């Protein structure tokens, strides 16, 4: 079963970290990454650029309209994601808890929809 681990961050909590704490966060995350690659559970994942680099796209009457900046202003934003393929939801939650951002802001675990299915 594949899960997406959505990693949230907020400027307030991030700014409060010391440089050493930020380095440790990077280190812990890359350690987890190698563990997941090694266990054969890692499918993909990326860090996202600062929300100020976002460009919103809306199509109205067939015309795309772009707006700079995040779609909505929020206190917490999506800072990155990991996709894992693991045995159970319990295991996915265990991995999510190991993402250092879970201790600072939060991580959300969502199942990824399967493209296959059984007739009923």
């Amino acid at each position, binding site marked *: 079963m594949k899960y997406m681990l959505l990693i949230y961050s907020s400027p307030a909590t991030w700014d409060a970290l010391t440089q050493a704490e930020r380095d440790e966060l990077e280190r812990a995350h890359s350690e987890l990454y190698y563990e997941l690659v090694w266990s054969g559970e890692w499918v993909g994942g990326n860090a996202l650029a600062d929300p100020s680099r976002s460009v919103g796209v809306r199509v109205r009457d067939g015309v795309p309209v772009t707006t700079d900046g995040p779609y909505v202003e929020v206190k917490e934003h999506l800072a990155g994601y990991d996709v894992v393929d693991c045995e159970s939801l319990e295991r996915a939650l265990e991995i999510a808890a190991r993402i250092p951002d879970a201790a600072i802001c939060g991580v959300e675990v969502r199942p990824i929809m399967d493209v296959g299915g059984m*007739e009923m």
Partner: protein
Amino acid sequence: MDPPRPAGQPATAAGQSATAAGQSAGGDGRPAAAGPAAAASLDELLRGLAPRVLGAVLRRYGDFDRTEDAVQEALLAAALQWPGEGVPRNPHGWLVTVATRRLTDQWRSEAARRDREANAAALDPATRPAAGTPSAGAPAADAALTGSGPSATGGPDAAAGGAPAGPAGWAGWAVDDTLTLLLLCCHEALSPASQVALTLRAVAGLTTAQIASAFLVPEATMTRRITRAKRSIAEAGARFGPPPDGDYGARMQAALHTLYLIFNEGYTATSGDELHRAELTGEAIRLTRQVHRLLPADGEVAGLLALMLLTEARRPARTTADGALVPLAEQDRSRWDRAQLREGIDLITATLPRALIGPYQLQAAIAAVHAEAARAEDTDWPQIVALYQLLERRAPNPMVTLSQAVAVAEVRGPRAGLELIAPLARDDRIAGHHRLTAVRAHLLELAGDTAAAHAAYQLASQQTTSRPEQRYLRGRAARLVDPQHPQRP
């Protein structure tokens, strides 16, 4: 053409292999050698040979991890060379020889690496072990693990000419290497997902890229899983040979479950871009057919094969052209594959009276009853209810109760079905599962409780993590409030 033979490779090795190939060809009806074959039949030939080649090399060297890699490389070499140069007279011998050479090369290069690490002087190529020198890199740990590494004096080449090494009692295990490998790949030290991946590679002869593509994960991820699975087997001390006494039954059950999972993975594929995944049903049927041929008296093997055939026969009718799911009751039965249905029905009919009845046979029997109905309304539901009752007694499981409830509703009405599933809401294994909610929705719809059915279909569509199922469930919900909804068949 002659097999490429490493220097010093005794000709007897090829001779032995020829005998082995001849024997397996006899048991399998597969030609021992083919002429200039079409790509499809070459692929079939190679994949049929894969487990036997692996078995032959494993029996000599025991090192499952490296041997399996070496056999994959040999298969790849054959797939590249044979179309141009023709299939060798003795394909099995050719593959064994090439795989053995790759294995030897790998041991040598590992030994050379260790030497280099141990001594800076070894950087000079002149000090590297010469070809044919007994390799210091004979995998001591693996040899100790399996008790069948290359002999200390002769090296792999000499061992290739000698008698196969193996655990005591090996000779009494008169079963094909394919089955031995399958049982090894389904070792209890592995998770079901790892058993599936390793079986597809080592027994079915698929490449890691193909398996990764079927399971929609990056190739590197699948490589790691397969490597880990092989290590786990080595760490558990398992060897290539019959499972220990008392383990056979459990291992066989795990093997059948693995084949079933491979089949299901392919069967649930619904869209065209999932071709690799859809091919898994063919792989599962091919492997199960081989096991059935080796163990014709095993009723559960026959039952599983019949179940796969009867299920696969419905594939052309189970989805619309755009990938939407069609429930059994609404399938166009003229699109069912008659030949597969016939084979499945004949197989289960012949098996049931003479074998010890088990869950796969009962599921196949249920599928056969469905297959025998020309129209959905001709279905012999009382017989299906009876079969589900037997199944529930033998293999109690909430999924069986759900299917039974649908059948009971056809015989005794939807309220009887709803009563049967009521306790499942308190069963942790299935409470909150979309299948329970979907069956409840179906039974409520039959009972005429449209509002409750609508709510249940909507809830089920939120609970499922399958896109085609979600589409189907939303369609059901929509047609309850709007009978003109396009999803209406």
